[in-house]
């Protein structure tokens, strides 16, 4: 069934077609209902104008702290919630239109959540959980079960031992393998991994990261990898997008971003990484205080309240993401020579 709506194969290297997944001007505000503790009219600006593209075969990492909008972005991409504004295009086709139905799109883009237990039906064997999606999409039950068993084997769980088990009989790492197998059951092109390894113990996390790398090669997958863990993102991602309070702060190739980030917020995030060296302990926290509340975020650049380089322009105008070099964008007045910021790149000052 999915084959009927399949897009043409991606263009060969060098010829750039539309990106595999493109998000344009995504906005999602959550009004806070007035009630007993009502703050009538308050709005959580969870995602406030986010645009980015994901190319076939890459891993885009999304990092940021709580309230930055990374999980809302994930839910918007999956269409689990409807955006207030903005569009999502898959292989150039707008999602949820006659060109690409939501059902066909969802077969192409699948998600793995942080909580491996909550995302499985406790009353279904894991084999049935994996086979369920394909059956909904019109695959015969026997074929779906065969596919489930093949995938279980592929994610490192022997189907003879595991197929008939229930989620509570598995460890966290095993359950997350099941969730990955289930996400792959519809043969998607994109996997959206939202803190997918964050709840796992470190010794198990490495196994699952390795598995994800292998599966990506084997099935030609594209990943969107959301995490608060900068080390893990650095390991997984080819490009990284840093979000702050509902906006993109910086996006660029992983090593360029980790080695020479241009946004003061990214620099502070990276500066918060602990050294693992008892002789070089952190002596000063890069930032004071917590991230502000996404209800009524600061005017102008949302980071200006915590930024060491903030000037008048920063509280007056929102910096637009602008390209600083190929494939690299920074939303900071210091990266814009015409912004009027005294430290702006190439400014007369």
């Amino acid at each position, binding site marked *: 069934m999915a084959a009927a709506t399949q897009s043409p194969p991606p263009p060969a290297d060098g010829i750039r077609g539309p990106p595999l997944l493109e998000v344009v001007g995504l906005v999602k505000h959550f009004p806070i209902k007035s009630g007993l503790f009502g703050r009538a009219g308050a709005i959580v600006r969870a995602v406030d104008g986010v645009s980015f593209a994901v190319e076939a075969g890459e891993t885009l990492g999304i990092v940021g702290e709580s309230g930055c909008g990374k999980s809302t972005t994930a839910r918007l991409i999956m269409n689990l919630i409807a955006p207030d504004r903005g569009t999502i295009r898959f292989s150039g086709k707008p999602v949820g239109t006659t060109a690409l139905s939501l059902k066909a799109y969802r077969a192409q883009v699948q998600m793995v959540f942080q909580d491996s237990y909550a995302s499985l039906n406790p009353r279904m064997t894991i084999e049935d959980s994996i086979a369920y999606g394909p059956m909904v999409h019109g695959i015969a039950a026997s074929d779906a079960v065969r596919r489930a068993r093949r995938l279980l084997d592929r994610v*490192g769980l022997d189907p003879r031992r595991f197929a008939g088990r229930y989620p509570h009989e598995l460890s966290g790492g095993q359950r997350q393998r099941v969730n990955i197998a289930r996400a792959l059951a519809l043969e998607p092109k994109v996997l959206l991994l939202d803190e997918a390894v964050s709840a796992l113990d*470190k010794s*198990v996390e490495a*196994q699952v990261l*390795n598995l994800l790398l292998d599966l990506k090669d084997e099935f030609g997958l594209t990943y969107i990898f959301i995490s608060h863990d900068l080390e893990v993102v650095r390991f997984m991602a080819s490009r990284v997008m840093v979000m702050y309070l509902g906006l993109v702060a910086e996006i660029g190739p992983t090593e360029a971003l980790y080695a020479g980030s241009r946004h003061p917020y990214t620099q502070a995030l990276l500066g918060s990484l602990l050294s693992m060296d008892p002789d070089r302990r952190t002596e000063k*926290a890069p930032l004071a205080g917590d991230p502000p509340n996404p209800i009524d975020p600061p005017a102008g650049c949302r980071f200006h309240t915590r930024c060491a380089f903030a000037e008048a322009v920063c509280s007056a105008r929102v910096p637009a993401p602008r390209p600083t070099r190929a494939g690299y964008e920074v939303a900071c007045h210091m990266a814009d020579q015409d912004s009027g910021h005294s430290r702006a790149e190439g400014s007369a000052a």
Partner: protein
Amino acid sequence: MRPSAEPILAIAGLTVTFTGGAKPVRALDGVDLTLGRGEVVALLGESGSGKSVTLRSVLRLHPQKTTRIQGSIRVDGIDVMALRGRALTDLRGRTASMVFQEPMLALDPVYTVGRQITEAILQHEAISTAEAHARALDLFERVRIPSPARRLAAYPHEMSGGMRQRAMIALALSSRPKILLADEPTTALDATVQVQILLLLRELQRELGLSVIFVTHDISVAVEVADRIAVMYAGRIVEIGTVRDVIRAPRHPYTIGLLSTRAHGGRLTGKRLPAIPGSPPDLANLPPGCAFAPRCALVLDRCRSAAPDAEPLGPGHLVRCWRSADTAGGSAAVPLSSEQRI
């Protein structure tokens, strides 16, 4: 560590079994641990390793009916296991107090944080409410809460995560404890906030001369705060030593594995990580020998039949491993599997 002084906390042969479920769960098995005065020891381990159980045992927080405890715990020379009634209440708070991972759950949502702190102070000291309030204000300044007077009147839900954890620390310090028990106090915090809280705890520890047990699953956090690290696995301390010993010359295959399996510094981007195979054991069905044996690259028959005792490798560096003579080479000596099947 001041070897001359008696340690403020001495745990010996602590074995804790929970009997409330269908099968008894042996959460701790023969834990020996001392904490020197003014010392910070990190208990490092994964879920189920026994690190939080150890911490809670010190305050006797386990339900009496469904917990079987053997071994001894002495705090400042007092036998904790023998305490009853008022003496036990005094231990909790006045001698040792705890900072939890989730301040939102530890603080009472229906009282202001200021009221909770003054109440705690009045519980332990015979002073006036006004004096207690002044102390609370002083504590809020100590933990660097901006506009402290205003924040004392706030309810927990009105504070941000980092601010709540500062308030929790103020509450824990309000009874002037000698020992601070910190149970993953920065795990729920964002990275930029975690650093602030770690620096605050380090500063308070130095200023107040606190003795601290710091429970964490994150090695880098342990390195940041601790003098010594005790690595726990399946209810036992499998390796203990100074931070430098444990980080730079780890000798237990589990510690070695944990250190080399980290995606760290981008050195391995996109390549497969060395991984410890398998999963942590089920505490209700522990193997008879070393609990790490099923996942260990150096396993021998002996490892499966008998658990090794703690063996000293250097001053204060102990490891529980039959193969400790062969692990000096670190990750080169203990190859990690890249096997996918589990």
